[in-house]
């Protein structure tokens, strides 16, 4: 890239095999962000194909992409359009032209192993003093708490509920404690390929050394990268909803309390669209006595992104007024559900915020599936 931000298009066209694109428009047509900002990935691909250079600085909307990967899932030619966004962000990262908040998140991860920049020593604050086995001593199941559940007071309840459920089921599990670090899923998607590689190497070594047969991730984002971008050979990577659904299925976990609520479930992009896990979260909800599950019109593959992925937790994007989360909570409210259940820390935060801003807090409550599970457990 030149100092003026002009990027030669040819190398990236080759690297990402953009010549496969037939300009059908299915990517931009399905892109939830394209409807509210100038982000048009199909048009960017076309520019890459027909022009020798791209002025990357002229596209601030590159930071709008949530990496929901709808475009990747739907491209009939397997072009993986979102990877172009990631690649172009990489160019901006290299030249230091990134939003301050993204820079802060990356620095936090580099220094403290988490995007908030809070101290590594405080990573176990979520336990509230409950003793959790150190996975380094050896265990069958490694619970990866993930950064947001570890540090965000609103989300800390999720790993606590998981500990309660796993203990009740008699699982031999542990966590990495303060040695746990950011998985790097968002780091890669923000374009910081170098830091991501470093995290993969360091985390991979530590995680493999535990010798667990299974890794359970609290966040779908971490689950995604551990499953698809790390090589944790011999270790099965699952999301917590899969683990809990299996414990219920095997009869190792039993619900004793009724939760008389009408609940609708929002599929997180990194769990649903990208990894096709649609049924297990629903199976957990349906197993809760008294709970009635209703569906939104846009569910499963058509779930609307909450706008929390791809670094968007730390960058507002170019259109602050219209948030997809606003639209989403209205869709949830229309079902008549009193609870909007989620299975992702980012969805929990973005949607809860949207419920408040949209004045729906009298009508709709956003809860993580584990909060409902917790209510159902004795």
């Amino acid at each position, binding site marked *: 890239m030149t100092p003026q931000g002009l990027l030669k298009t040819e190398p990236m066209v080759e690297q990402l095999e953009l010549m496969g694109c037939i300009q059908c428009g299915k*990517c*931009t047509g399905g892109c939830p962000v394209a409807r509210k900002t100038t982000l048009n990935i199909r048009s960017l691909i076309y520019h890459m194909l027909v022009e020798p250079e791209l002025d990357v600085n002229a596209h601030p909307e590159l930071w709008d992409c949530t990496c929901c990967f709808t475009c990747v899932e739907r491209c009939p030619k397997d072009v993986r359009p979102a990877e172009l966004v990631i690649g172009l962000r990489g160019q901006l990262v290299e030249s230091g032209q990134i939003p301050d908040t993204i820079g802060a998140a990356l620095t936090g991860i580099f220094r403290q192993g988490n995007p908030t920049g809070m101290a590594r020593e405080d990573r176990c604050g979520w336990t509230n003093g409950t003793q959790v086995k150190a996975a380094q001593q050896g265990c069958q199941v490694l619970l990866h708490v993930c950064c947001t559940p570890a540090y965000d007071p609103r989300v800390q309840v999720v790993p606590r509920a998981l500990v309660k459920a796993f203990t009740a089921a008699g699982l031999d599990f542990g966590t990495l404690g303060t040695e746990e670090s950011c998985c790097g899923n968002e780091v890669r998607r923000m374009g910081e390929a170098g830091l991501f590689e470093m995290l993969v190497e360091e985390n991979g070594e530590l995680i493999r050394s535990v010798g667990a047969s299974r890794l359970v991730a609290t966040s779908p984002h971490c689950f995604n990268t551990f499953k698809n971008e790390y090589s944790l050979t011999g270790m099965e990577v699952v999301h917590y909803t899969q683990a809990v659904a299996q414990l219920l299925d095997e009869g190792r976990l039993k619900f004793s309390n009724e939760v008389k609520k009408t609940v609708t479930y929002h599929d997180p992009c990194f769990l649903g669209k990208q990894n096709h896990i649609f049924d297990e979260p629903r199976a957990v909800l349906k197993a809760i006595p008294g709970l009635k599950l209703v569906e939104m019109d846009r569910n499963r593959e058509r779930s609307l992104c909450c706008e929390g992925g791809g670094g968007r937790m730390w960058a507002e994007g170019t259109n602050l007024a219209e948030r997809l989360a606003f639209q989403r909570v209205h869709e949830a409210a229309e079902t008549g559900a009193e609870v909007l259940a989620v299975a992702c820390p980012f969805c929990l935060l973005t949607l809860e915020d949207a419920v408040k801003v949209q004045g729906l807090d009298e009508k709709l409550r956003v809860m993580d599936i584990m909060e409902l599970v917790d209510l159902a457990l004795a």
Partner: protein
Amino acid sequence: MEAEPRIGVYICHCGVNIAANVDVEQVAQFAATLPGVVVSRNYLYMCSDPGQGLIQQDIQQHGLNRVVVASCSPRMHEPTFRGAAQQVGLNPYLVEMANIREQCSWVHSNREQATEKAKALVASTVAKAAQLEPLVEREVGVTPGALVIGGGIAGLCAALDVADAGFPVYLVEQSDHVGGRLKDLNRTFPTLELVADLLGPLVERVRSHPKVTVLLNSQVTSVEGYVGNFEVQVTPAPSSTPSSSPLKVGSIIVATGYDLFDPHRKPELGYGQYAHVITSLEMEQRLFEGRVGVDGQEPKRIAFIKCVGSRDVQVGNPYCSRVCCMVTAKQARLVQELLPEADVTVFYMDVRTFGKGAEEFYDEARDKGVLYRRGTVSEIIRRGERVVLMGEDTLQGRPFEFEADLVVLAVGMEARSDVGALSTLLKLPRSADGFFLELHPKLRPVDTAVNGVFLAGCCQGPKDVTDTVAQAKAAAASALIPLIRGTVPAESATAVVEPELCAGCGMCVEVCPFGAPALDALWPVSRINFVLCKGCGTCAVTCPSKAIRLQHFTASQILAQVDALVE
């Protein structure tokens, strides 16, 4: 063979194809020094008439009993040189080729090294030629009659042509009626002829034809034999016992058709979830009734979406289904005529209207008011009483939301889900897309890897009625060749068993892909049916007793070839 080898070697220049990169003069001189070589020449084009004449003249003048031609691939000209030798009385299996074009001059740039390689290839071929044996060319008789599998438009047309030529035809159809999937359609494109008018007389002719036996509710459950003499077991469904003695036929036409893509596999389009979203086949049924609306409501905004399940690697169908563009143009036009006030919009990524009269039909559809908008619809959601199509108009370069009362998905074609069973029964290879594989895409479009088995219609790949009927008639003509000839040539370079060495273990029976070996009922040794044997050599290398010899590729011939190469 008793006579000493007298070998003639012919080095072809192939214009400059070989000569530019290989010193053909030097190779010819080298060949003259090889054991058994009586004459060695080089010539501009060995395959030309004078080139062949040269070989024939030498055979006669020098009493040659082996010929080695060093030129192109044997796939190209082996029949040419074998034929030339045969004309002057030399057994064609005494001709051998060295490939110094594709395997030498075309792939190397260093002339010196290429020349050395050409010499090695020639020496190797000469060594094998010295050990060649004459083989007998055989013919076998043919059962006069054909089997057609599948009673759709392809099967009906193929059956009629074979029957009209005077041969009995068995038409096996697994459903309770003939007419296939075409029967479910309203009108054809681009003529808008009623399908009933087209199919009715055809079905009637088949039913009343004295040479055609239609077997409904029936399936082919086993196929034995070979070109000219197949034995086919047909079982009436759902019972599992074969109804009668096997049918005996000389050739087989496969016309088993296709499956429609199931749009449930594109969940983002909401098929099965919204009553507004239907397939193009369901649209045909509505056009039959002349009422296209949902729940009796006349639709005001109608959208057609093309390429559903086609040109889409996400569902494993990278190919174009070839008919959907015209099906859509036809339906959009008919709907627009039925509802002149309605907005009819077609969402497309490309418009492929390539048939005769097809582009003109597409022009007329737009003239009638059908709007074409470029952009593949990415998602369908509900809004009130309507559904909303979300996509990008790629010509405007911005996303759209299009509200519609009715959405028609132009679903593509797929290989039938049960195609694997028939593929196994007939040993028919399939292409990567799942459809049956023709022997050559241009020159043998209805032939298959199995002699005597031919393809017609969509079982070979998506096509419209026009192309289906053309292919059916081609398949019928090809299937008639053995029937009319009355005999079929058998492969000469087959495997033979030396019964004294055979232990009767049956491993050859297990490995043969063509069912050629069988253990003798009385004396437990393997016998190879020379008509079924394709000369692949699998049995010969498997046989633990080394009792099987593949003629023309015997162990000693191949060892001689290898020895000469490594010397």
